[in-house]
C-alpha cells in the first residue's frame, strides 16, 4: 500500500508512476485511469512508460442486453479464475446520461464480494458519449491493468442492443450473453452483435424459450461459410443462479471454454490478427490526438476558430474548404522542414 496522501508532497514523475503501476499500486493505477477518462495529456505520457510492459493478459469481453446477467457472470468468472490462482482486473462500463452527463455505475454491486481481494481490481467506467458500448478510455485502461500484472482482464460492456460491437477491438475472447425471448431467426441472422461471439451463453436458461433460442443460434451458425481457426462458437447454457451447484458447474464449463478459445488463438495467427487490429486502431487514435488536437489548440488560441465557425454559420465559407486550407498550411510547413533536413543530409 502507498503512503498516506499527506506525505505525497512531491508529484511523481512518469517513470515513478509507471514503476508503481507495474508493482501493482492500486491508487496510482486508478488515478491514471481517471486521468485517461478525463483525456489529460499527462496521462498519455505516463502510458508511454507502461506500454512496453503490456500484452500479457488474456482480455475477455462480456456483452449482452441490459439485465442479461453480465455482471453476475463476470462475478462468477472472477471467482473461478481466482481459484486457479490467477489475478483478475475488471472494467465495467455503464452509460452516461446524454442529458446531465451523470451516470449510475452499478455493475460493481454483483462483484463486491471480491472488493477486498488484493488479486482483484474492479473499476467502473461511464461511456461519456462513446457509442460502441464502451468508454473511449477502455483501450488505455486495459493497458493499465495489464501493466499491473493482471492475468485476466474482464471487460463488461454496457447493456447492448444490436450494434455495439466495439468490444471486438479490445477482447481476445468475446462472450455474448443472450436470454430467452429475444425474437425469431431473423434477429439471429442480422449483422452486429450476433456475429462477434466467440462463445454464446444462454443465460437464465431455466426460463421458457431457452431451447428454441439454442436452436435458432445453432441454425444461424450452420449457415456460416467458415469459422476462423476452425472455432465454431459453442452455445452454453447457464441457469438458475439460485441453484449454486449447477450454476457453478455451468460457470466451470464457460471458463474452460474461454480458456480453450484463448489457447486456440495463441497457437494460430488469430491472436496476431486481433493484435494487429488493435494496434492499427491505437496508432490511428494516437495520430488523431497528435495531429488534430494541437491544430485545434492553435486555432482556438489564435482566435481563428470562432471566426471560422461564424463564417460557416453565415454561409460565407464551407467547412470542407476551411479544413483543406488549414491542412495545407500545416502540411506545407512539414514539407518545408523535410526539404531542409534532406538538404542538410
Amino acid at each position, binding site marked *: *500500500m*502507498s*503512503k*498516506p*496522501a*499527506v506525505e*505525497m508532497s512531491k*508529484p*511523481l514523475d512518469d517513470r515513478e*508512476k509507471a514503476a508503481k503501476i507495474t508493482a501493482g499500486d*492500486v*491508487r*496510482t493505477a*486508478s*488515478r491514471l*485511469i*481517471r*486521468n485517461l*477518462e*478525463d*483525456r*489529460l*495529456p*499527462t496521462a498519455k505520457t505516463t502510458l508511454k512508460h507502461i506500454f512496453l510492459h503490456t500484452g500479457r493478459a488474456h482480455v475477455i469481453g462480456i456483452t449482452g442486453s441490459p439485465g442479461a446477467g453480465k455482471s453476475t457472470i463476470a462475478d462468477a468468472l472472477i471467482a473461478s479464475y481466482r481459484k486457479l490462482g490467477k489475478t483478475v482486473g475488471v472494467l465495467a462500463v455503464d452509460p*452516461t*446520461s446524454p442529458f*446531465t*452527463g*451523470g*451516470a*449510475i*455505475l*452499478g455493475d*460493481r*454491486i454483483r462483484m*463486491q464480494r471480491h*472488493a*477486498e481481494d488484493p488479486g482483484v*481490481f*474492479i*473499476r*467502473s467506467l*461511464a461511456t*461519456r458519449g462513446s457509442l460502441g458500448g464502451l468508454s473511449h478510455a477502455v483501450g488505455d485502461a486495459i493497458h493499465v491493468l495489464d501493466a499491473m500484472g493482471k492475468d485476466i482482464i474482464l471487460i463488461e460492456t454496457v447493456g447492448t442492443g444490436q450494434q455495439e460491437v466495439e468490444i471486438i477491438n479490445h477482447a481476445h475472447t468475446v462472450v455474448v450473453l443472450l436470454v430467452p425471448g429475444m425474437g425469431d431467426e431473423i434477429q439471429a441472422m442480422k449483422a452486429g452483435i450476433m456475429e462477434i461471439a466467440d462463445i454464446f451463453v444462454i443465460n437464465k436458461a431455466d426460463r421458457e424459450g431457452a431451447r428454441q433460442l439454442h436452436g435458432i443460434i445453432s441454425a444461424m451458425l450452420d449457415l456460416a461459410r467458415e469459422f476462423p481457426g476452425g472455432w465454431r462458437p459453442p452455445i452454453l447454457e447457464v441457469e438458475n443462479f439460485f441453484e449454486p451447484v449447477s450454476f457453478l458447474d455451468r460457470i466451470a464449463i464457460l471458463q474452460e471454454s474461454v480458456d480453450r478459445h484463448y489457447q486456440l488463438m495463441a497457437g494460430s495467427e488469430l491472436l496476431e490478427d486481433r493484435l494487429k487490429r488493435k494496434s492499427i486502431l491505437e496508432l490511428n487514435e494516437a495520430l488523431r490526438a497528435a495531429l488534430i*488536437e494541437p491544430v*485545434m489548440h492553435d486555432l482556438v488560441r489564435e482566435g481563428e476558430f470562432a471566426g471560422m465557425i461564424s463564417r460557416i454559420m453565415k454561409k460565407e465559407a464551407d467547412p470542407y474548404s476551411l479544413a483543406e486550407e488549414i491542412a495545407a498550411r500545416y502540411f506545407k510547413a512539414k514539407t518545408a522542414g523535410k526539404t531542409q533536413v534532406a538538404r542538410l543530409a
Partner: protein
Amino acid sequence: MVEQGKIRIMVAKPGLDGHDRGARILSRYFRDAGFEVIYTGCHQTPEQIAAAAVQEDVDLVGLSCLSGAHRFLFPRVVELLRQQGAGDIVVIAGGIIPEDDFPFLHQAGIKAIFTPGASLESIVDWIKENVKTGSGNE
C-alpha cells in the same frame, strides 16, 4: 481536448441494515446532478467500502446507515481510507443519527452529516461547494 473532470461518488451502506431506498434515491439524484455514481449495495463491510473507493478513485464516499451502528462503522471507513493513502477522499454520512453523535463523528473525520428531512438539493449543493474532482492530481 481535456474533458471537464467529473466528480465521482460512491454511495455505500455499511453494516447489516438493508434499507436502501434512500441510498438509491440519492444515487439517482446525484446522477441527475451530473456526478458519476458508484453504488455498491447493502451489507458492506468498511473494508469492502474503503477498498472499492480506492479502486474506483472516487472523490467522495456517502455512507448511509439506519441501524444505529454508525459510531463504529463510519469512523472505521475513514480510518481505512487513511491507511490506504486515500485520506483525501471526503466522507459524508446520512441516516438515523442522533445529534449527540455529531461531534464524535466530525472528530472522526466525517465531513458532513445529513439526517431525515435534509433536502436532496442541500446535499448536492454541499458536494458542489466542498468537493473538487481529483482528476489531474497525481
